[in-house]
């Protein structure tokens, strides 16, 4: 009984931290709209142009247009790009003193980390919705049914949690906003290119394929693609397992390092 009470308290503290972050987004929604510009360009310009390269189509799954293939990749990309810079906010809050004060409350450290990651995940849902709407406006055919939508939300939340946890794990190591900005940029592009987000793994340079295999983003894209484009779900359990596993590991690493953010 005691364990359940402790667990209940823990979950409550996670949710309060997530609420704190989400309230901030509610006060400033412009950031969500600004974040739709980049994926819109990727879809409308890059996607449209690449659709005209007929050689590409033979590498795509049967009966799938390039835009259908690419939309899940752009979904993943847009959430990744926001989550990977999450650590900058944490460093900023550390510099101000907000982290110190949070650490002095009864909330366990790891619940602060998980709450913050969860907020990044939930924020990803808003982004996913805007991109799905964008894709629908561009008349990209997406498989939308209750199951695929729930699956989409689950994967997007995990994606946001996974990479914001990575970013939070790096924050105590790099400690300044400038370095966090640099490190974010240094890792997003390799993560993005070494995944099947905008082209199939089969046509990648062979040396990069092993990276794609261990890249959590590959599994995110694969899962989203199965749900939204191909309808082929036989790899979905593996995809979710890998993402969940990476998320848990990164959350643990971030929690272990978080105390070092106290000044």
């Amino acid at each position, binding site marked *: 009984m005691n364990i359940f009470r402790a667990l209940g308290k823990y979950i409550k503290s996670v949710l309060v931290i997530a609420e*704190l972050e989400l309230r*901030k987004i509610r*006060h400033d929604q412009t950031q969500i709209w600004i974040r739709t510009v980049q994926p819109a360009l990727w879809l409308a310009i890059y996607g449209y142009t690449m659709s005209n390269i007929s050689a590409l189509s033979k590498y795509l799954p049967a009966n799938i247009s390039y835009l259908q293939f690419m939309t899940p990749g752009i979904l993943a990309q847009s959430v990744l790009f926001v989550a990977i810079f999450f650590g900058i906010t944490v460093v900023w809050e550390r510099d*101000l*003193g907000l982290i110190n004060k949070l650490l*002095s409350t*009864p909330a366990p450290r790891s619940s602060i980390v998980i709450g913050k990651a969860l907020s990044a995940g939930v924020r990803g849902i808003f982004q996913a919705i805007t991109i799905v709407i964008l894709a629908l406006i561009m008349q990209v055919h997406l498989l939308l049914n209750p199951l695929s939508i729930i699956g989409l939300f689950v994967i997007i939340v995990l994606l946001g949690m996974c990479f914001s946890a990575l970013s939070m794990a790096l924050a105590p190591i790099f400690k300044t906003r400038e370095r966090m900005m640099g490190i974010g940029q240094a890792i997003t592009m390799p993560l993005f290119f070494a995944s099947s987000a905008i082209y199939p793994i089969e046509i990648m340079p062979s040396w990069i394929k092993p990276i794609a295999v261990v890249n959590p983003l590959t599994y995110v894209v694969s899962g989203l693609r199965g749900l939204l484009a191909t309808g082929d779900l036989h790899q979905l359990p593996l995809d979710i397992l890998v993402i969940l596993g990476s998320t848990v590991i990164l959350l643990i690493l971030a929690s272990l390092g978080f105390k070092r953010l106290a000044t």
Partner: protein
Amino acid sequence: MEQQAIVVENLVKEYPRVKAVDGVSFSVAKGEIFGLLGPNGAGKTTTIRTLLTLIKPTSGKVTMFDVDVTRNSETIRRMSGYVPQDVSADGELTAYENVLIYAKLYDMPRQERKKRIMDVLGYLQIKERANDMVNTYSGGMMRRLEIAQALVNRPKVLFLDEPSIGLDPNARRIIWELINRLRNEFGTTIFLTTHDMNEADILCDRIGIMNKGMLATLDTPEKLKSSVGGDVISIGSPAQDCARKVKEMGYNIISSAQNNQCDIVVENGEATIPLLLGKLNAGGIKVESVSLKKPTLDDAFLKYTGSRIEADQGDTFQSAKRARTAFRRFTQ
């Protein structure tokens, strides 16, 4: 015997290259306003953070209301409120939300929450602007909000790290009045650190003077001041051997030859000055200036640590002020 709120015995905190706190012992009575006074790097913040379970002491024993700080950190956190030196209110939220989050983190029952938040905001006179974004607040209002966040849990002990740093004189006075009221009305024990003599003098029941990780002395402001032993005469002289000569005449020097100045303590300043000047003139020592003052905490500090808190301590004030300004600018 009156119950002790905090008992610190032989507290030591060592970092790889520096001993931040070096064997400090003191106790704070329930309902007392207790201050640690000292320059930057004296170990004040390390001490406060050890009491708050944010830092594990290297050795020594700290208890708060008989609860061991290292053993039962959650109990300690639940009875403490903490206002850090830096900005800790979130500018991207309203004042109400800022307090709400802390009310929730301290498990305040849902039914009481709203009332208690509004009560505490009312108490700190920011109720009318409860639903404004905090990045529109002035520095003083932000500080009051930060105190509100720490108070909503009704802590037994309130920890304030440099409570009035970065605030203008008016805002400081409001904060000081507030801290006093809090103790008088609710009996809250208040533990603060400061490098501001004035703040320590006005606010604290007892002051611990801290320097280089050690507690130099501990007493009431009045006793500390009277312990200086009388009036302080400062003599400004370009002569190198002024201090030596003054000493030879049998005066009690408390500091010497900083910027051609030496300070002596005498019982009756007004009567001593003409005598002293006459002697110095006779000794061929040129005197450029003489000033007399009643002893201040500053002099007591000098007596116990052998140095003054330098003016560049204002750095922290400036940087805190800058942080607050930048914070508002960036988040607006």
